[in-house]
């Protein structure tokens, strides 16, 4: 027990910590390499005007030196980004201040829309591709060509479609914002492929045993779908969902840079192009993007591992009530065994 704890501490705490420290060290080294003498001289001059030189040349402390690097070192980056992180949900339109939290929520909302659209599109297409050879032969080549297209390439096409779509919807009394539509379209079309392909693979991989059962029981097409094809494909679909979500989050940053509306991508670009630029906040935004992406992926893989437990949830819940013994089923066990089958 004790050795287990020690192993855990070493494997899961100490080693990642060492890695993070080494990475920070590398960051300092790179930062030091971008030191600019000109900036330093200027800062020294400024400092001299403000303060009288103190004995021991206190104003030549490392602070000024680190402020003269092009790439801000970690502590400088934090200093520059701090205000966005200290008040993440403050919106002050007067001086254009918007906390990083608000920007992240904007991005997540947009991703949710595009991702939802892509799933709604991908699952039926995946089932058709997996179920019909004809369909595969017809559309597989087109998909293979469209799949590697970058989000940056789709964005203008979405813009092209935005105008007629907007006009059409306006006659129906629905208002859309072109830029938002452009982002949603781009996210949807870029993240649709993994779900389509995985669903199709899942449909093709349904064990012959289950198909035989369906045939012997003479299940109707609908029952065959709900009771056999759909649950059997579910684990594959969730793999697709996870990959698609990853792509959605990858695409959003590019979209927001192009759309220039709001969101972390926009924030990052804005920090880079600002006068003066705020490189620290830019780096902060990069870390936020990474962190959110990581969290999304973890959440999805947790779902992925427990798909069938999710499916069995109503029954398990019902049984829990019936027996007043909620932990009767090890949900993970159900999922593990089904994914093996």
């Amino acid at each position, binding site marked *: 027990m004790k050795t287990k704890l020690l192993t855990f501490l070493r494997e899961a705490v100490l080693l990642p910590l060492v890695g993070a420290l080494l990475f920070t060290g590398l960051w300092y080294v790179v930062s030091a390499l971008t030191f600019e003498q000109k900036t330093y001289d200027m800062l020294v001059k400024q400092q001299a005007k403000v303060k009288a030189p103190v004995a021991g040349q206190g104003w030549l402390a490392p602070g000024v030196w680190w402020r003269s690097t092009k790439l801000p070192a970690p502590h400088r980056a934090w200093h520059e980004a701090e205000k966005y992180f200290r008040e993440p949900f403050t919106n002050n339109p007067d001086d254009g201040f918007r906390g990083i939290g608000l920007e992240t929520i904007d991005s997540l909302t947009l991703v949710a829309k595009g991702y939802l659209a892509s799933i709604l599109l991908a699952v039926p297409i995946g089932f058709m591709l997996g179920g019909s050879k004809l369909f595969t032969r017809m559309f597989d080549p087109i998909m293979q060509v469209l799949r590697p297209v970058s989000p940056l390439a789709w964005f203008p096409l979405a813009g092209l479609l935005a105008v007629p779509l907007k006009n059409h919807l306006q006659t129906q009394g629905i208002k859309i914002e072109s830029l938002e539509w452009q982002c949603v379209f781009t996210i949807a079309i870029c993240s649709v492929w993994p779900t389509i392909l995985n669903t199709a693979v899942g449909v093709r991989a349904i064990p012959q*045993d*289950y198909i*035989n*059962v369906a*045939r*012997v*029981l*003479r*299940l109707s097409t609908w*029952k065959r779908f709900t*009771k*056999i094809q759909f*649950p059997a494909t579910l684990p594959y679909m969730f793999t697709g969902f996870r990959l698609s979500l990853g792509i959605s989050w990858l695409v959003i940053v590019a979209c927001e840079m192009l759309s220039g509306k709001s969101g972390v991508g926009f924030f990052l670009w804005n920090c880079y192009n600002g006068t003066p630029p705020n490189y620290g906040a830019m780096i902060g935004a990069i870390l936020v993007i990474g962190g959110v992406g990581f969290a999304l992926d973890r959440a999805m893989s947790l779902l992925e591992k427990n798909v*069938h437990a999710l*499916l*069995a949830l109503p*029954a398990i819940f019902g*049984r829990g009530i*019936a027996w007043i013994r909620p932990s009767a*089923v090890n949900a993970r*066990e*159900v999922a*593990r*065994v*089904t994914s093996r*089958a």
Partner: protein
Amino acid sequence: MLLLELKSISKGFGQGSLRTQVLSDVNLAVKAGEFVAIVGYSGAGKTTLISLLAGLLLPDTGEVRMRGKPAGAPRPDRGVVFQNYSLLPWLSVLDNIRLGVKQVFRDFDDARIDDQCNKYISMVNLGHASEKYPSELSGGMRQRVSLARALAMQPSVLLLDEPLSALDALTRTTLQDELARISQAEQTAMVLITNDVDEAILLADRIVPLSAGPQATLGPEFPVGIPRPRDRRVAASHPAHGKLKREIISYLTSTRAAKRDALLAAGVA
């Protein structure tokens, strides 16, 4: 009355020079309520034979007939118990069975469907596990569920594809006894495919050996004259038992030797 018939069936797989003729000229007639066991070597084509009986495969030549008419596509009327259970892992025991029952008894209300399911769940002694999932059950229990699923649809013939061969010896014995009890109680015609001659003798009214493959065919039938209900120990010590077992095994080994000689001769030529 003849319930299920195979008439000069042949079936092969593969293309061109890779083609192997698995079954050739297979004839079988199963009467209503009768228990037929087909005994053969592994790989002789036993599963192919049961798939043909179930309608999961179509024969290359010949015909499968049910009550005198061409049998056609699979129907719940010909129940199947698969060797590897084939339970749906995302459904509980009860739901696995209910899926089939609902399909067959469309005019039943929910309460009646549940009654029907529970009747067969208790018949295979699984009353305590009806809400469990297949992954929570042992192999023997899973095969009981599979058996209950097939029985609950009240088929006129039940096709058992080596239902017990994946189980350990002790569980196997228990399930053999239960199968004997159920077949006695239900009066459903059963076709059992097995590689265990003792199992066949314990359970069947008559035994038909499947000769060694390729081009396997059904041999002469051996009626089992041991009176029912058969007790395992009594059946084993019955004078007919040893003779029957010897005859069946010597038939099977002779077909294998003949097949090997034929293959060797072909190789030499």
